[in-house]
């Protein structure tokens, strides 16, 4: 009934074809993005369930809810599911997939069938991982450290390793598609200097995916071979070197942090200019800082191993390089802030998430600098300080960016607006819940609470902060569930969005919402730079507020 408001029912990518086959065999990047959205949301709830059990266990000092071994599996699987099956595909495979071809004026990604293949590979990997969970799980921590994973653990390391190995190919294919698309598929006039920053950031992300992921793939293969064939490459008692495993693991897994955060930065770089009604400040610097993060990000991995017996000199070098990676990150933060300065700000839902991102990412990033400092790292290594730090980056950064982006482009994806009031409320709840969950963990870590412990009855004074953290996690859960509910609701009952509800720049807003299957009726010709907000009218709602 709600469709009455549309004067003419236009053919778009959603109603072009119907039926399950039209989705499972689609090569349309927009439909594949939605396939990914559904799958990663499912995995997010799997990972969230493990997080819930972890927080409930830590509510009391004694190890009373779960068995110690079960707890080990919970945090291992929480990490692996969230990192490899939610965060890494999240923004690139959903929003990147949906938006990159539209932003550069292309009909599709360069390799549509490979794009679909990447989703199927993801599904196979996720299925294998779920099978691993149901057949008993894995307890190596998300890091698979040897020789524990290769020799001692009696859990399903092989299944988990292979699942992540397979998932890696899905992310390699996505990255490959993005790089080639950005190089080869740009519309006439879409020069590198006119690319939206979203595309620049995803380009940098794709390079990391392409050059990093194969290394974790081969590392996991070696662990699986070591375990099945009893080789001893990483077993110190047989002349192997477990630190080599750590080098190979972190060579991917540190840059993987940037696979998670750069796409969020991509989203924020689009939201901030739009809701400040201003050109982004220092376009070239923001674009180049993405590339800078990708490059320097490959040179810092050993800061995870300061206490693993690497030489002091290499530790000093890696410490210095880690400080260096803070520079491009800071450039971005300062440029976003400068974009907002003297802009016509409006605090719509996406903007709330974006501002939340800047604050939380700054905390997450700066505590990363603490951890890069050799002396401090020795004190807080493997404590809750580290946990809090990377959750500020991965949840406060990556997840907030994902939610912000989902809200920002929801009208484009579905053609309908979500309820703004609920949106703002959820954004505030997420922000409060998040800080309540993870800020106490900084203090806990500084007080010495080690990560991965299931029982802290020797230090009952840590309970207060843990209770706060668990309470915060419940609030955070509400903040995640709310958007699920009202966004699904808006699919049917939301207001019709129109082509460009935010009056945003960018080619994706110049096409109908939802877009037609081939995005543009005729290939657009680009004549202006990105973010020409001085030429755009104010959006309806904003001008009403004034």
């Amino acid at each position: 009934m709600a469709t009455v408001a549309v004067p003419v029912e236009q053919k778009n990518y959603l109603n072009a074809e119907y039926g399950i086959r039209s989705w499972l065999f689609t090569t349309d990047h927009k439909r594949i993005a939605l396939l990914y959205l559904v799958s990663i949301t499912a995995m997010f709830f799997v990972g969230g369930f493990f997080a819930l059990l972890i927080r409930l266990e830590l509510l009391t000092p004694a190890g009373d809810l779960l068995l110690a071994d079960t707890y080990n599996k919970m945090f291992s699987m929480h990490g692996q599911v969230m990192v490899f099956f939610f965060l890494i595909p999240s923004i690139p495979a959903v929003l990147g997939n949906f938006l990159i071809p539209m932003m550069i004026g292309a009909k599709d990604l360069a390799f549509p069938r490979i794009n679909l293949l990447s989703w199927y590979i993801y599904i196979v990997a996720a299925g294998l991982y779920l099978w691993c969970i149901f057949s008993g799980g894995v307890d190596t921590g998300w890091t698979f450290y040897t020789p524990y994973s290769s020799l001692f653990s009696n859990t399903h390391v092989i299944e988990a390793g292979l699942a992540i190995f397979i998932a890696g190919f899905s992310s390699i294919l996505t990255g490959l598609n993005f790089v080639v698309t950005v190089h080869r598929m740009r519309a006439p006039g879409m020069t590198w200097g006119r690319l939206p920053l979203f595309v620049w950031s995803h380009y940098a992300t794709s390079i990391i995916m392409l050059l990093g992921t194969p290394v974790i793939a081969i590392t996991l293969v070696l662990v699986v071979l070591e375990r099945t064939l009893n080789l001893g490459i990483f077993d110190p008692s047989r002349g192997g070197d477990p630190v080599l495993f750590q080098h190979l693991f972190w060579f991917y897994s540190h840059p993987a942090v940037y696979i998670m955060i750069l796409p969020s930065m991509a989203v924020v770089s689009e939201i901030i200019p739009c809701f400040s009604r201003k050109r982004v400040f220092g376009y070239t610097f923001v674009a180049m800082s993405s590339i800078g993060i990708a490059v320097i990000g490959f040179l810092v991995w050993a800061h995870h191993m300061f206490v693993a017996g690497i030489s002091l000199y290499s530790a000093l070098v890696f410490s210095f390089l880690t400080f260096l990676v803070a520079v491009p990150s800071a450039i971005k933060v300062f440029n976003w802030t400068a974009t907002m300065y003297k802009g016509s700000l409006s605090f719509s839902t996406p903007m709330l998430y974006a501002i939340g991102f800047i604050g939380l990412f700054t905390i997450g990033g700066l505590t990363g600098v603490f951890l890069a400092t050799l002396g401090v790292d020795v004190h807080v290594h493997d404590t809750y300080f580290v946990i809090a730090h990377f959750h500020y980056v991965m949840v406060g950064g990556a997840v907030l960016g994902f939610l912000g982006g989902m809200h920002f482009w929801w009208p484009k994806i579905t053609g309908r607006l979500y309820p703004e009031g609920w949106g703002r409320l959820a954004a505030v709840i997420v922000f409060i819940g998040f800080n309540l969950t993870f800020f106490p963990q900084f203090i806990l870590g500084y007080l010495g609470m080690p990560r991965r412990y299931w029982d802290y009855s020797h230090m009952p004074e840590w309970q207060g902060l843990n209770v706060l953290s668990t309470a915060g996690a419940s609030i955070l859960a509400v903040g995640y569930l709310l958007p699920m509910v009202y966004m699904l609701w808006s699919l049917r009952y939301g207001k019709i969005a129109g082509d460009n509800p935010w009056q945003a720049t960018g080619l994706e807003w110049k096409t109908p919402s939802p877009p037609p299957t081939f995005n543009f009726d005729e290939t657009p010709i680009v004549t202006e730079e990105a973010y020409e907000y001085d030429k755009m009218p104010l959006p309806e709602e904003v001008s009403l507020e004034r």
Partner: protein
Amino acid sequence: MSDSHAMETPLAVEHEARPELRHHFADEQQQRNAASLGMWWFLGTEIMFFGGMFCGYLVYRRMYFTEFAAASRTLNLPIGAFNTVVLLCSSLTVAMAVRFAQLGNRKMQVRMLLLTLVFGLAFLGIKGKEWGDKYKEHHIPTFNHYNVISGEGALTNVKGNAELLGLDKITDPVKRQQREAEIQQRTKIFYSLYFALTGMHAIHMIIGVGIFIVITWMAHKGRFTPEYHTPLEIAGLYWHFVDIVWIYLFPLLYLIDRRGA
């Protein structure tokens, strides 16, 4: 704006005349460039993939050089060298197949591709024979009968190895036993890496043979013309890459130190 609009042919009609052009590309040039860039980047990921193992190899080669060198001498150099030639020949025939496609010579194209398949399978067969020999010599790390100290596969059977490993100077039987246990362990790492590297290379070869069976079929059906032979070209890139990996594997594994051997 209206000018360019008037000049545009409707998409469907324009594409119908060019069956190889996929819907989302503007022209063949763009499609070809995309495919070849995609393959080059993919090969970049492959370099990183093998790079992880090469990195492990370098670390252990530096740590356990003498044991690596001694174990390397047990690899069959003539057969390895012959196999290298076989693989180089296959790369040549791939390059010639591409050339014949450019010239529009279908018959020679198919012949070259068939030769490529023969060379590729020959390489795999010879590699399989080498692995079989390793099994007979008890050099496969995962088996309990692994033994490089005595029997058919003893390292000291190779001339110069006893001196290289320092076994000739140890007279104390206890010390000798300790050293032998050490050698047993460290060579195991060499052979683990040998099998991991050559095994991963062989998997790539098998995938390559599979790809080239399809390509040969396409060539046989006359799918490649001087204007359009992108699949052949990018499959060729992959084949050359797998060849190059072997060019690095051969000296790293077979030629660590052949002086005096």
